[in-house]
């Protein structure tokens, strides 16, 4: 179905064609064939950069034609201007620009490298990209999805709309919005690319339609029609499922065609051809078939189509089914103007079909663009607002001062009390005291009751303490044991190492107690006797320590073979040089941990059980153990950390949404990324091609439009 405008266009085109033909005819008369010059009337992708024409006339294009405007524009830098001027002066021909595939390949390569590097560095990557954030949404977003439902609301909104007052975002009026919508360069580029694309598509379509129209073959058109019908039916079935409203409209159209069919005598087997066929049908199978087909067509077209779309319709139709068919026939209405033809009130006005005309389609596309750009705009605004919020706080941060409490450190003072006495004499005093107590007790024993407890008090103790005269016990003599014989070193050295006087030298301080314990004399004395039964504790300990030290010492390995190279036998010793030569001293072990602790023996055995749980190989980036150990010093478990820290420490490197398809990254993702991450600066400039030869800049600049319009290029994620 051609509309008026399209028919006009075709008329115009026809004229043009005729004119062209005339021109061609004239030119052919001249004998020599003129070179045909392609003329560009539409912006399209397939414009070759090798044929740049000037104004449709046969003149050559000069560089000055292209670059003349550069001198006037203020945006271009002086440097490029100068370069271009130089270029103008140069005589040499320019190298060919890289072809599309190659430039794209280069771009993809660069983009791949950049993103992979970024992804490696990133703490966490979330797939799929561009997810909608869960959680609380912005107020504007929520309001956008909301519709006025009650009459009051509707009225209010109508009022607001009529006065072009802001509804969703009450802060900004449409004028302000428009001013805010001023595009950035990037977005402008994108938008221009989109427009170019649509224009190009449009021109393709036009050209195609023109070409097809010129085809005269009936068969072709028949097949075409058939195919279209099939396609349409298929689409319709699908539409019933997905878009019932649209389907209803389609249904109306079909209804219209049905009416036409019913009105006309087509396919009724009443035409000339049909009559002739009817005669033939008796004898010819094919003719019969053709007739049958005709009838079938009629039947198909006149058949009423019932589509259950809404509950209301269903109920309607159920009610109607009982009524004979012919009653319904005029019922479905097409003409909305005619009030008598009114069928169902809910029907919307059928829109003008958009099959032949392309204007509405492009308008739709433009709408989409507007939406997209609007979304960008909104996002940018939000981000700006966020940044504005952030900045002042950051400025104020350094001013805050930490009021620190001064740390009072407890100094580790070595105790240097002047209390002398009470050293080793405790035992003596104890003995004496015991003895005196015992005698006392024996005297008083008769007077004491069995159940009573005798309690000493402080005065008692003081009196007792006065009686005692402190006598230092002589240090137990060091037994010269045979321990030293095992090694060749003299025992004197060891004496210097461990001095008996150093062991257990700490002064004791007497503690005053408010009440003193009841004394069970017999028991205590027996305990003390037991204590002294085990003889000298200290010398035993020192012996033990020496033994341990000797065991830890490296041993001399004697490899002398008696009688080898000299006389051997009973009573003969290998010679001195031989002993010197074949006695191997092992490397000395590291100094003992307890060398400065006289009353302690620390085992030098290595704890091998823990070794299997330890890290024994340095992981990759670390150069020494200290670095690695400091890196793992903070535990990550819940026992040692707060909940938030644990979550942060154990967050996964990659997060994928369950069931979501992870699409490969496309150009748009990049652009989004670069525009959103304003602080970092664009990671990649897809619109520009960096090449070594600066002289080519002009041509690459020309390419930009094309590259922008390219369909989504799949980039490696």
């Amino acid at each position, binding site marked *: 179905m051609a509309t008026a405008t399209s028919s006009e266009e075709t008329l115009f085109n026809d004229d043009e064609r005729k004119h062209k033909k005339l021109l061609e005819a004239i030119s052919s008369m001249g004998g020599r064939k003129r070179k045909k010059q392609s003329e560009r009337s539409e912006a399209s992708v397939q414009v070759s950069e090798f044929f740049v024409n000037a104004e449709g006339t046969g003149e050559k294009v000069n560089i000055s034609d292209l670059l003349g405007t550069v001198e006037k524009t203020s945006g271009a830098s002086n440097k490029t201007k100068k370069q271009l001027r130089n270029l103008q002066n140069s005589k040499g021909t320019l190298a060919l620009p890289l072809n599309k595939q190659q430039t794209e390949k280069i771009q993809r390569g660069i983009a791949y490298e950049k993103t992979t590097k970024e992804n490696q*560095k990133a703490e966490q990557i979330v797939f799929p990209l561009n997810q909608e954030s869960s959680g609380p949404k912005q107020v504007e977003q929520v309001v956008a999805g909301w519709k006025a439902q009650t009459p009051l609301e509707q009225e209010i909104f109508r009022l607001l709309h009529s006065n072009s007052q802001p509804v969703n975002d009450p802060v900004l009026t449409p004028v302000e919005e428009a001013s805010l919508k001023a595009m950035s360069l990037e977005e402008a580029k994108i938008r221009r690319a989109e427009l170019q694309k649509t224009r190009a598509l449009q021109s393709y379509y036009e050209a195609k339609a023109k070409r097809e129209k010129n085809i005269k073959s009936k068969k072709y058109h028949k097949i075409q029609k058939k195919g279209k019908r099939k396609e349409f039916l298929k689409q319709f079935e699908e539409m019933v499922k997905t878009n019932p409203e649209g389907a209803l409209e389609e249904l109306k159209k079909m209804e219209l065609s049905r009416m036409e069919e019913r009105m006309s005598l087509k396919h009724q087997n009443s035409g000339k051809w049909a009559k002739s066929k009817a005669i033939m049908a008796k004898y010819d199978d094919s003719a019969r078939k053709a007739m049958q087909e005709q009838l079938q067509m009629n039947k198909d077209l006149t058949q009423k189509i019932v589509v259950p779309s809404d509950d209301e319709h269903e109920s309607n139709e159920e009610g109607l089914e009982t009524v004979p068919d012919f009653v319904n026939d005029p019922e479905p209405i097409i003409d909305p103007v005619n009030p008598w033809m009114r069928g169902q009130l809910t029907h919307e006005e059928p829109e003008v079909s958009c099959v032949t005309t392309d204007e509405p389609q492009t308008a739709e596309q433009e709408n989409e663009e507007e939406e997209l750009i609007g979304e960008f705009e909104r996002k940018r605004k939000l981000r700006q607002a966020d940044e504005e919020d952030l900045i002042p*706080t950051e400025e*104020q*941060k350094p*001013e*805050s001062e*930490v009021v*620190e409490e001064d*740390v009072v450190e*407890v100094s580790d*003072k070595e*105790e240097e009390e002047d209390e002398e006495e*009470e050293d080793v004499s*405790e*035992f003596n005093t104890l003995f004496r005291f015991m003895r005196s107590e015992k005698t006392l007790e024996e005297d008083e024993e008769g007077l004491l009751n069995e159940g009573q*407890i005798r309690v000493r008090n402080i005065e008692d*103790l003081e009196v007792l303490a006065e009686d005692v005269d402190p006598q230092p016990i002589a240090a137990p003599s060091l037994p010269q044991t045979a321990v030293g014989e095992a090694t060749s070193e003299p025992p004197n050295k060891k004496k210097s190492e461990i001095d008996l006087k150093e*062991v*257990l030298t*700490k002064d004791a*301080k*007497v*503690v005053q*107690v*408010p009440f003193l*314990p*009841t004394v*069970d004399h017999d028991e205590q004395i027996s305990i003390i006797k037991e204590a*002294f039964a085990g003889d000298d*504790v200290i010398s*035993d300990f020192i012996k033990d320590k020496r033994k341990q030290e000797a065991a830890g010492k490296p041993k001399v390995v004697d490899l002398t073979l008696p009688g080898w190279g000299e006389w051997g036998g009973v009573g003969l010793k290998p010679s001195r040089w031989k002993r010197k030569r074949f006695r191997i001293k092992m490397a000395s072990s590291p100094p003992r941990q*307890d060398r400065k602790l006289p009353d*302690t023996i620390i*085992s030098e*055995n290595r704890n*091998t059980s*823990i*070794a*299997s*749980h*330890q*890290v*024994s*190989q340095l992981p*990759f*980036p*670390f*150069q020494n*153990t200290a*670095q690695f*150990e*400091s*890196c793992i*010093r*903070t*535990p990550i478990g819940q*026992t040692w*950390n*707060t909940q938030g*820290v644990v979550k942060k420490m154990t967050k996964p490197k990659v997060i994928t949404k369950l069931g979501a398809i992870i699409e490969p990254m496309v150009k748009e993702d990049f652009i989004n990324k670069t525009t959103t991450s304003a602080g970092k600066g664009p990671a990649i400039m897809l619109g520009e091609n960096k090449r070594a030869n600066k002289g080519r800049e002009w041509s690459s600049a020309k390419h930009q439009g094309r590259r922008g319009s390219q369909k989504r290029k799949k980039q490696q994620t």
Partner: protein
Amino acid sequence: MSAVMPELLTSTHVEKMKKKKPPKRYWEETENTDQSQRRPEEEEGKAGQNQNESTVKERPLKRKNDERLEKKDPFPGEAPIPHKQLQKFQRGEKCKVPAGARRRLKEAITSSEAMSEHAQKQAARYDLLLPEDAGFLEGDEDEDTNTISQDDIADAVDITSGSKYFSLHLSQFGPYRLDYSRTGRHLLVGGKKGHVACIDWQTKDLMCEMNVMETVNDVKWLHTEAMFAVAQKRWLYIYDSKGVELHCVKKFNDVLRMQFLPYHFLLATASATGFLQYLDVSVGKEVAAICTKMGRLDVMAQNPHNAVIHLGHPNGTISLWSPNQKEPLVKMLCHRGAVRSLTVDKTGTYMVTSGLDRKLKVYDIRAFKPLHSCFLPAGASCLSLSQRGLLSAATGDIVQVYQNILGSSPVSKPYMAHRLRGQIWGLAYCPFEDVLGIGHGEGFTSMIVPGAGEPNFDALDTNPFRSYEQRQEWEVKALLEKVQPELIGLHPEQLSKVDQASFEQRHKEQVEALGFDPLAKVKFKPKTKKKGRSSAGAIEKRKRKVAHEDQRDEIRQSVQERTEREKELKEKSNEKKLGNKSTLDRFRK
């Protein structure tokens, strides 16, 4: 009267004058103080200049105008964390990025440092959530706290706390050993003559009571209050909380003392035959049996920090054991006579011992050095340290409690004292309570010791108020987080260290295989430059530049440290001169 009147008049007049001014708002005050806080140096510097009052008066007026325009947050940014609190949660030293580090190394170090700093800060912040504080007993002037009797304390405190002072008269099966469960709710007492009972001591609910008809040497709760172990005359028995005998472990004979390591699920037993044995109670397997060759082992304690078992011996030595080594990790000579009792504090820093030589000694167990010792007239037969570091010592029939004994200076008199009837045989502090349980010849006594228990409990680890379900949940989690016995050693932090021995061995092999040391620092090789700049002299010069770089770094660091130290000292001295400033000083006129 006449003299007073004019004064009054003037005063009213002044008030009227004041009324004309707009009322002062609270934020104005805070703003002023805040500003003064922020720039104390400036204020001080200007103090001399601002002698004339006119300038001083103008400034606040200006500020007021500003404030009307926009309210500012008087305390912007995050709340500061006190340095002291931060230091409390510091883990190890920070690692600096070396000078010529590669990118990956730089990233690894910086990210881990940032993370640990964040963790430290958060922990310091959350420390705010431990609000409880421990109290203590304070006497009047010239009154010793140790003369205050338990009855007086019980009368003075609230009823609930007062009810924590009680005693059980069990004179028949005397003397008693006792053990509190880790949450502090349940008490297990075992009389020498076979009487075993478990009690929910706060409600005084008797969970079970029985007589095992045998000598009982020691009793111990296992990981929960559902099971306990009893060391009887011959073998080790395990009962459940209803008194049903679950196991008789005949591999463990003649056990005298027991310790339970809660994070390893190990029951360590010391026997009369000189054997130290470890029983894994989660799987019921004997982990290790060590013949100590030290004779009868009747003194035992555990170090809660590293799960090392301390044993005291008749020859005055104390030995430290882990299940992984057949010989003692450390052997210390502590007393001239036999060791009678010992205990280790919660942090694993201090060990307190008492011997037959009637001395009480405090050791720094990390360095194995004695800190101080004191002479107790009757010697201490039992020792116990509370969660907050109060030491209780049983001398005969008296229990003495010492405060600040873990400090550097020795104490001269006890913090509290309490007399009981009969010899004391068992002594234990109740976790998270200010209560000391005493088992003696005449039964059991629960004594109030203010300031003994930790006021803040970790509810995920030991929750005194946990329900049955919570206990079940905890049990599963604890079993999942069970620490393997191989990890017991003197230094538990060793796990986070690289196994140096095998590392060196492997490195040596690698060097042999490769023919060069991959970890060695690369020798500086000067680039060859053109146009005569690569002469021998120039190269040498460049080499020298690099050669002293490290040295220079060190020197720079040391100088910086020194200056910082000096600065600190100066600040401290300044503070001393000025006197301690408090937050309330700003209200002073």
